[in-house]
């Protein structure tokens, strides 16, 4: 190497090293645990109590003279919409939103909980929410807001879903996620003779009734159109109405689960069912093309081609009540901004925001009283003017109210996977159950497993 080149190399290395050391230094000295950003509060807001909340909610058009800053982590950038709506009312409260990629958010939260240094506010998805809710790092919401309103006004299952195993409110869920049957109005008119959601709901009140409709439509369309697309989705609809799988750390598979497997098997073997992988592109395209009639999806569905089918969508009541994909907002117990966070949570729980969320994003409020208030004469343009609140209210009434735990959703998902795979590969019930039990025994060695008598 030439001497000049060597000097250049060494100089570059020195610059890079200096750059790295400068760039790598942390933002100030942050003791642990602390909030990620130093407090930027310029005025001390009044402590929030119930009366204040009412006042805030009743005069939303008046910007409130609160100021300060807190951090908010989420796994979906729709959190920005939420914060934008909040800032329209509270312009002086800065919410520092950080989004982490969806699938890895849980990993990030796991490590962050280990560090004990959480953001002031953070979202938790239903699938793993209950792993965290018992942590003392998560604040009891009753210390900063009126949680009595949840018991009085919230949809019952959401009221329970916000609690941990000790009955303490640890997460605010501001929208319901009921599973409904999505259909296209013109396709329903053509093959069912109606697009009225009540009439359609009556046609598919049970899986047997659904199979009859499937046969009629299949034959009338010469096999071109089917009613139901796969067996996995049946599990989503029915699972929450079956007996709880884990009670007191013991896994027990009640006979009702075998009934579900058998119903899935009958649907699979029916010549009138077409088999699309749920949530696949093929599945979404086929539904939007009118090649099958119903798909079970929560209210936050993102498989509708709205450019093509806006105004042509309908929703009907499924055979069983279910919800899926709740998002809870939790608060760091050691945050220094509980007053600001209380203001934020009260806004998110307010009629004002839940109505806005319904009107702008077709999301179902968690407040049942609000749903009932709004449902009189409600019309959703995206759904051909259907009173979707009326339909959702009927579904919500059928969803069992209980507090899930860290086993609930993961076990249901695992069972769904084993049952769907088993039925498609012609496994016996015993093989399906054994597969399921083996997987659970590996994942949760702390569980006592009671092997069922196979009917």
């Amino acid at each position: 190497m030439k001497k000049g080149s060597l000097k250049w190399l060494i100089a570059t290395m020195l610059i890079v090293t200096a750059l790295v050391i400068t760039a790598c230094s942390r933002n100030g000295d942050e003791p642990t645990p602390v909030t990620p950003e130093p407090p930027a509060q310029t005025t001390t807001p009044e402590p929030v109590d119930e009366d204040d909340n009412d006042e805030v909610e009743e005069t939303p058009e008046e910007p409130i003279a609160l100021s300060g800053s807190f951090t908010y982590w989420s796994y979906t950038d729709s959190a920005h919409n939420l914060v934008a709506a909040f800032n329209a009312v509270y312009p002086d409260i800065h919410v520092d939103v950080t989004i982490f990629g969806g699938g890895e958010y849980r990993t990030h939260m796991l490590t962050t909980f280990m560090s004990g240094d959480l953001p002031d506010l953070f979202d938790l998805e239903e699938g793993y929410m209950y792993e965290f809710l018992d942590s003392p790092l998560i604040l009891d919401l009753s210390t900063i807001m009126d949680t009595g309103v949840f018991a009085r006004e919230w949809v019952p299952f959401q009221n329970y879903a916000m609690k941990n195993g000790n009955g303490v409110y640890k997460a605010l869920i501001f929208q319901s996620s009921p599973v409904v049957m999505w259909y296209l109005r013109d396709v329903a008119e053509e093959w069912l003779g109606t697009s009225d959601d009540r009439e359609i709901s009556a046609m598919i009140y049970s899986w047997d009734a659904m199979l009859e409709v499937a046969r009629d439509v299949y034959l009338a369309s010469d096999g071109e159109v089917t009613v139901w697309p796969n067996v996995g989705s049946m599990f989503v609809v029915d699972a929450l109405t079956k007996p709880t799988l884990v009670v007191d750390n013991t896994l027990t598979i009640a006979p009702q689960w075998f009934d579900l497997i058998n119903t899935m098997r009958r649907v699979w073997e029916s010549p009138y069912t077409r088999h699309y992988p749920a949530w696949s592109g093929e599945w979404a395209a086929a539904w939007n093309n009118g090649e099958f009639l119903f798909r079970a999806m929560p209210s936050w569905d993102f498989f509708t081609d709205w450019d093509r089918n806006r105004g042509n969508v309908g929703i009907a009541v499924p055979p069983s009540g279910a919800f899926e994909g709740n998002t809870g907002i939790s608060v760091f117990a050691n945050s220094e901004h509980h007053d600001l966070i209380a203001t934020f949570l009260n806004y998110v729980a307010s009629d004002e925001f839940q109505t806005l969320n319904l009107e702008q994003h077709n999301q179902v409020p968690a407040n049942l009283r609000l749903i009932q208030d709004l449902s009189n004469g409600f019309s959703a343009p995206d759904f051909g003017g259907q009173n979707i609140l009326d339909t959702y209210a009927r579904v919500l009434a059928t969803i069992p109210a209980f507090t899930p735990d860290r086993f609930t959703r993961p076990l249901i998902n695992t069972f769904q996977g084993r049952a769907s795979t088993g039925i498609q590969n012609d496994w016996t019930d015993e093989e399906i159950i054994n597969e399921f039990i083996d997987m659970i025994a590996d994942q949760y060695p702390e569980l006592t497993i009671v092997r069922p008598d196979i009917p």
Partner: protein
Amino acid sequence: MSSPRARRLLVRGVSHLFLFAIALTAFYPFFVMIISSTHNHFNIMTTINILPGNSLGDNWERLTRHINIFRGTANSLVIAISATILQNYFTLMGGYAFSKFLFKGRSGMFAFVVIMMMIPGQISIIGFFHTVRQMGLINSYIPLIIPGIANSFAVFFYKQYLDGALPNEMIEAAVMDGCREINIFHQIVLPLAKPALVVQGVLIFIGSWNSYLTPLIILNDRDRMTLPLLIATVRDANHAEVGAQYLGMLISIIPIVIIFCFSSKVIMERISIGAAVKG
């Protein structure tokens, strides 16, 4: 006369067809990425797209609505360039030591390095996180750059390379001429290892540029996030934006393509240690 020629042409034709098929297979993911970046989410989900769509502008708007992609690019560049230079320098030093110095326990230590190559990094991620936290380095770039200095594959690679490319006589001559050890490294080893440095540098740069899990658990501050982390955030519970994510991926590979363009000749020529030695 024409028969051997025809056979040659046939063989060449079949070979070219085969190579074309392989090239097509390799290029297809890039093609999908490029075309998908111009389509909306629903088109991507439901259709096999061959022609460009008209959603490039919408995807760009969606991609940049909540994230600063230029900031992410700058952050990724700082980390990747720093990691490339520092890792290359220190692992070459390690490889040189294993190659040319005779010391007690050398074989055992080198075996340890080789064994370390076989342990997946993800296994130690929790322990790594704890260590980083105890050192107060959460949200810092140091854990993303400095630990790479112990890149066991690079040490192994340089050791093997220098075994063949650097004759002992050259070192001995330098020592006899009174050259200090550090100067031998800088003036003899570094220049001779240039082809290997380029190859390993590209590997380190790409690895650092694409790194996702470690930055995910270390970086909390949005302004410090790397490009892959930021791109992954372009999603919505109600409207997954695959088109915008494809556009982000397309942008994120531009630096890698540039690096490859500049160094492809060296990589192609020296990709194998044997070739480098003979060269």
